[in-house]
Every structure is written in structure tokens, then in C-alpha cells.
């Protein structure tokens, strides 16, 4: 991880796993967006079928991270039901709920729950 890195992207069989690896200052805007844009470019040849964003390493965040989530979702073009958030603190859940982002993307307790929620979605009849 470099000092200006906020996210760690990994691919797992079509699912983009995004770890938020350090607290996001509201004044990191340009660096934050650049980091996300660069990492999205690096994986532009991969086909993103689903996204899991893991918040385990941060306690809270503000509108800047909400904006980064919106950019991630818009740029990848993933269906909102195929994007899951996990390991969100109670204050983080409150913030997502205030912005009503929890109505866009399901908030799961753990990464395993998020994977399971994606699998369940896969198994449901069309």
C-alpha cells in the first residue's frame, strides 16, 4: 500500500473486492478520486459482474467516500443489486442510511455474508 492509496482492488472470479484501507479525509478528494480512477483503469480489461466494498478498516466516513462509492458504481456500471457493502461500523451504517445509499446497495454484516447474498441473488429465478 502506498501512502496515497485509499482502496485495494482485487478480483475474484468476476467480483471486484474493494477494501477501504485507511480513513478517508474529506480533504483527500482529488487523491481519493485519482486512486479510484487509476485502479479502475488498471482493471478495465476485467469484466466486473459484482462488487463488494469492505469497510472493516475504517470506523466512519463522510460525504467524500459516499461520492467515491457513487463513482465506483457508475463507472463499473454494475447493477445496484450486484453491489454489496460489508463490515460497516454503526456510525457508518447511520451515514449510509441518512444518504439512503442502503436503499441502493445492500449492507451485509461480513464479507462472507456479502458473497452469500450475491450467490443467493444468482440462484433466484429470473
Amino acid at each position, binding site marked *: 500500500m502506498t501512502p496515497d492509496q485509499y482502496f485495494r482492488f482485487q478480483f475474484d472470479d468476476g467480483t471486484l473486492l474493494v477494501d477501504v484501507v485507511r480513513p478517508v*479525509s*474529506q*480533504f483527500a*478528494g*482529488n487523491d481519493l*478520486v*485519482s486512486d479510484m*480512477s487509476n485502479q479502475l483503469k488498471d482493471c478495465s480489461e476485467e469484466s466486473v459482474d459484482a462488487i463488494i466494498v469492505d469497510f472493516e478498516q475504517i*470506523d*466512519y*466516513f*463522510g*460525504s*467524500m467516500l*459516499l*461520492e467515491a462509492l*457513487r*463513482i465506483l458504481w*457508475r463507472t463499473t456500471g454494475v447493477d445496484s443489486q450486484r453491489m454489496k457493502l460489508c463490515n460497516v461500523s*454503526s*456510525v457508518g451504517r*447511520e*451515514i449510509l442510511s*441518512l*444518504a*439512503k*445509499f442502503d*436503499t*441502493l446497495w445492500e449492507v451485509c454484516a461480513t464479507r462472507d455474508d456479502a458473497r452469500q447474498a450475491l450467490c443467493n441473488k444468482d440462484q433466484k429465478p429470473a
Partner: protein
Amino acid sequence: MPTILIVDDSAMDRELAGGLLRKNPANEIRFASDGLQALADMSERPPDVVLTDMQMPNLNGLELVERIRADFPLVPVVLMTARGSEEIAVSALHAGAASYVPKRSLKHSLAETIERVLIASCEDRGMATLIRNQLTCTTSAFELTNDVSLIPALITYLRHSIETLGLYGESDRMRVGVALEEALVNAYYHGNLEISSELRETDHQAYYELARSRSQIEPYASRSIYVDVEFTPNRATYVVRDEGPGFDPDALPDPTDEEHLDRSSGRGLLLMRTFMDEVRFNAQGNEVTLTKLRSREKVASQPQKVEA
């Protein structure tokens, strides 16, 4: 009489440490066999110091340090480390443990380490008692010139201040931090640099590029953000003022309206209004006053008297 809580799942090690500390007849020794039992004991009566093993069932030493830091921040924790527990001990020190003693050195170092930690803790508690119980009002004022890197430092300082004052529990401290960041973001980007968040919705890179260029040209470059802070025993008040032309907060779209969910505007103000008890703008719209009343949330352990 200082009270020392010894936490270890090994009865033999508990007795060994307890025996060494009982050599000072002033010490009162209590025991717990794991982290959960220790927390239950502490909630009845917080000790003056906790001495804990690292590897235990139910709640290990690191988890115990984290819980004590959150719920009893004035109670120091000393670790007993054994071969193989170095990594977890380093994490526990990062998490706020006060010191450590290798188990193989208990005989030579334990009493001295505990005494040293108790003396430091006594000073901390005295200061905390003074600040939390005797301070009636404190004010501070900042002028932040055009250096955005100072703003996170200010927020950190203000968060530490409210922690020291004991006004809020951990969750409310986070909420205040979020609201302050949003107010300062608003003052910097939308106030002093006069950049609309509508640009961010359409082209976020152009938004930040414009911010960078405006921060180097007049009139934007010489504008400051002024922050006045007042703490009393019952409330914290923050006034954030920029030197921009101001804006009409009522003109912002409701970010929770389903039609606006995908827009950037208004989320910061929503967070401010939700996390503070009062948010008030001046008529020009370039100054916001944020007030947070004393927390109803449990504020972690009030200072206790200690006799070292």
C-alpha cells in the same frame, strides 16, 4: 489503596503475578480468568490498572485493550507477554496499552512497571478530573489560510479536545468529526473557492482541477477560513466562516429524495444537520454555527480518585 486487576486464564500465572504485587501491602489485588470476566468486574468497580495476559479464551489481550480503551479510557493496561505473543502485544500497544512486562521478567520488572504506570495514570486522572469537573468554559479561535493540509490536523485537534473534556462518547465524537469535516469542506470548496458541487456530479476531475487552479489565484488564494470553538460543560459550539459570497442552504436539493440519490449536492449539509443538535447559517450563508449538546450516550468512565 490502588486496585490492580490481574487477567490471566492460567491460575498459576495469576497467583505468581498477584504474589509479586502483594509484596506492596498498599495494593489491592483482584483477579479475572479472561477478558469477558475482566470487563464484567470493571463495570462493577473500575480498578486503577489492569495487568493482562495476551492469549486467553473468549476475549484475548488485544481485544480486551480495545474494549478498555473505549469504555474505560482512564484505566491503563499493562501486558504480560510470553514467547509467541509478540505480534499481538505490538498490536495491543498500538491500540493503547500503557506498557508490557515479559512473563519471564515478572519477578524483576513487574512491581516497578506497575508503580510507574500508576503514577502516570494518577497524573492523567487528576488532569481529567480538573478538566471534566472544574472547567467552566474554554474557547479557541483559528484562522486557516489557504493550506488545505492543515484542516485535517484541526479536526484531529478538535476531536481530541472533546475526548479530553469528556463531553461525548465514542460514537458522538465520530459524528461531531464528520459534521465538522463537512462544514470545513463546504467552507473551502464551495465558500472560498466558489466551486459548485454540480461540477463534481458531471466531471469530478474537472472539479478538483478547478479547485487546484483557483487555490493559486486571487481573490480565492488569499481567503481564509475562521473557526471559533467554545466548550462548556454542557455543549460544544463551532462557528465556521469563510470569505466567499455565501450561499442559500435552502436552495440545495434534498439528497434523500429518490430523484437526487445519484447527485452530490446536499449530503454534507444533511450529515451536519443530523449529527449536530443545531445547525444555523448567517443571513449571507458564509458562516455556519454548529452546536452539540452534552452526550446522552454513555461517556466512558468518569475519573476516579486513585491513591498511588
